[in-house]
């Protein structure tokens, strides 16, 4: 069966520090991969999606970037965090129209 992992589960970072969140999927090959952010009381905001290694599409221009160095690995990065980057970050995969989400990373920028 397929599983999706995200780490870390929680993170507290100062403004201006770098960020790296990692997501890996097991049990499937060539999945579509997604990064979302969920702010308190708001819906899921699609940040990036990828249909293959090295193929990244950005939905919202901001100080975040994403990379897919391997088929089942998706990384979300920032060089300098802003206060507004705080939120719940979710990675998801799909092979059809259904999406399957990871456990999420709670990021607090102080």
């Amino acid at each position, binding site marked *: 069966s397929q599983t999706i992992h995200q780490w870390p589960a929680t993170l507290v970072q100062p403004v201006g520090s770098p960020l790296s969140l990692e997501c890996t999927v097991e049990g499937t090959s060539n999945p*579509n991969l*997604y990064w*979302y952010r969920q702010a308190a*009381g*708001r*819906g*899921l905001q*699609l940040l990036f*999606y990828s*249909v293959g290694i090295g193929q990244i*599409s950005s939905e919202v221009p901001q100080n975040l970037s994403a990379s897919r160095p391997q088929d089942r690995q998706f990384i979300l990065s920032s060089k300098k965090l802003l206060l507004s980057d705080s939120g719940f970050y*979710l990675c*998801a995969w799909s092979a059809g*129209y*259904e*999406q*399957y*989400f*990871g*456990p*999420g990373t*709670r990021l607090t920028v102080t």
Partner: protein
Amino acid sequence: SQKIEQNSEALNIQEGKTATLTCNYTNYSPAYLQWYRQDPGRGPVFLLLIRENEKEKRKERLKVTFDTTLKQSLFHITASQPADSATYLCASVSGTYKYIFGTGTRLKVLA
């Protein structure tokens, strides 16, 4: 802009009753609508998908409808239980990668 709207107010119902949640979409015609369940501090879990040419879809105690005239989907949980308490998210799918999520409706089933 394309938008999915859900009632942001929490819905409280008595155990055993049917819960009905509403999802409205504006400014586009999605090919698919989906419903997810999200518990606090967890990622959403996929529940049901319905296509625009399907009027109704069922899975155990869950039922989803898709009304393209009203631009609306209804999500029903029959014989609700306290374990059904969660936030339910509606999402549309257009094309292969374009997912738009609503803000979700929090359901609380009272014992």
